[in-house]
């Protein structure tokens, strides 16, 4: 825990120290952001769709099928968008970071970097942390929008709801606290994904077997931390905003 905290502090502290690895930041942003776009869109779309499908049948029992848009919108923006995007990024990027940095560690490339006078935390960890936080934020917005669209597609084509009613409800129900909650979570999740992935990668030992172990640990720990922190963040924000 102490080493994890030190690495996280160091990664952020490096933002204010030269040199700034702008090219690495752009490369990582492209890899994490653009590279994760397809899975985030697919996950978001089908989650929104299945949410509409499942909730509509329950809501219909109370004659409230018309509020499907409201339910999909709130669920996607406050919970499912951030959490599912976080979990997708964990599967794709925390594992990638742990295995890439782990391979570099066991093949002495990290030591070689230090021997060549470069701080590996600054060169490898800081760009990944910043890129993941920023990209997680934007990918969550995309996931939210696509999820609402997916719910809309199902509601209109399969449940016979009116398009304008669905989207009007989906929009009208949202309040600023919901948006703040939905956009604050990915910042924390991005931080968790990248720091956990980098931590396990940078501390890999035991050859190729160790790389596999580090990758598994990174995915498991980051996933659990995302779900646990989601509960804590939700509780705090509900306490602050009252919804």
């Amino acid at each position, binding site marked *: 825990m102490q080493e994890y905290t030190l690495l996280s502090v160091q990664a952020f502290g490096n933002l204010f120290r030269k*040199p700034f690895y702008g090219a690495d930041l752009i490369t990582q942003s492209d890899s994490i952001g653009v590279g994760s776009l397809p899975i985030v869109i697919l996950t978001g779309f089908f989650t929104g769709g299945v949410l509409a499908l499942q909730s509509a049948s329950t809501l219909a029992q109370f004659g409230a099928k018309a509020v499907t848009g409201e339910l999909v919108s709130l669920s996607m923006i406050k919970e499912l968008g951030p959490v599912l995007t976080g979990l997708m990024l964990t599967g794709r990027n925390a594992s990638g970071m742990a295995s890439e940095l782990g*391979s*570099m560690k066991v*093949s*002495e*490339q990290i*030591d*070689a*970097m*230090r*021997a*060549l*006078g*470069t*701080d590996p935390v600054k060169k490898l960890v800081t760009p990944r942390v910043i890129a993941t936080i920023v990209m997680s934020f934007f990918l969550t917005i995309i996931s939210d929008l696509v999820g609402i669209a997916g719910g809309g597609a199902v509601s209109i084509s399969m449940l016979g709801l009116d398009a304008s009613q669905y989207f009007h409800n989906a929009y009208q129900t949202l309040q600023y606290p919901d948006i703040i909650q939905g956009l604050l979570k990915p910042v924390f999740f991005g931080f968790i994904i990248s720091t956990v992935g980098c931590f396990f990668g940078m501390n890999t030992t035991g050859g190729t077997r160790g790389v596999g172990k580090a990758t598994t640990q990174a995915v498991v720990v980051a996933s659990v931390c995302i779900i646990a922190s989601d509960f804590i963040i939700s509780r705090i924000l509900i306490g602050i905003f009252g919804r």
Partner: protein
Amino acid sequence: MPETATLTPEQPAHSDVPEQVLVFEDVGIYFEDHPVLQNVSFVVNRGETRILLGPAGVGKSVLLKMANGLLKPDTGRIMLFGQDIAKLTEDELLVLRRRVGMVFQESALFDSLDVEDNVAYRLEEENVSPEECTARVEEALRFVELEHTLQKFPSELSGGMRRRVAIARAIITKPDLLLYDSPTGGLDPITSTTIIELVVKQRDFYGTTAMLVTHRLQDAFVMATHHYDAEKKSMQPIADNGLDPNTSFLVLNDGKVVFDGTTHDLVHSDDPFLKEYLA
């Protein structure tokens, strides 16, 4: 060895190299309470090439990493260019390490970068202009006779070629100290001789202070008994069975220094361990 390199002896980039480049004073290091090195003391003087011998697992690579500040000692003191590495911050160490070239046991080339970017890594970090960068990369690769591999990735190179690229990466900044960690380990005898020839060429042409770890006695004695002939552009035996005066030996056993001296003293030692080890 084919003739490709145009060699020009140059002064080291740093003129402030102290007489004692590297000093170990009673150095010890423990891994999980197990002593790996104990009471290790020796000096590497400017222009000297020190060959570190010892059985596998005795701590030779650990010692080399400590010399570069990659590992810090638990006891004793290590002075690199007159500075106590234990008292330096990681940032200060990064600056100090730029004066040291290191060749790792398994080359440790960055596998996501091609040969050109691997060799140019340090220069790019220092924001050297692309033109100068290219020229110096070509010069370094010419030295190791791999100028045709610029665009290849490490995975496309043989083990021997990777070691030569690692040497090019280590010497491109004309360091004041070169550390070679088993540069011939796992290579066939012909490729090993090529690598040793490069090390000897670097020693005799640039006079760079160096420390070389090896468990191949043959390589060690080739270095001690040969010099680089610039006219013939190859490594030749020193006349009259002579020995290179700047090459000396350090032998480790059980985490301790059991020999520190010249080639002549080593081969004439009466120490039972050394006799058995050299036999």
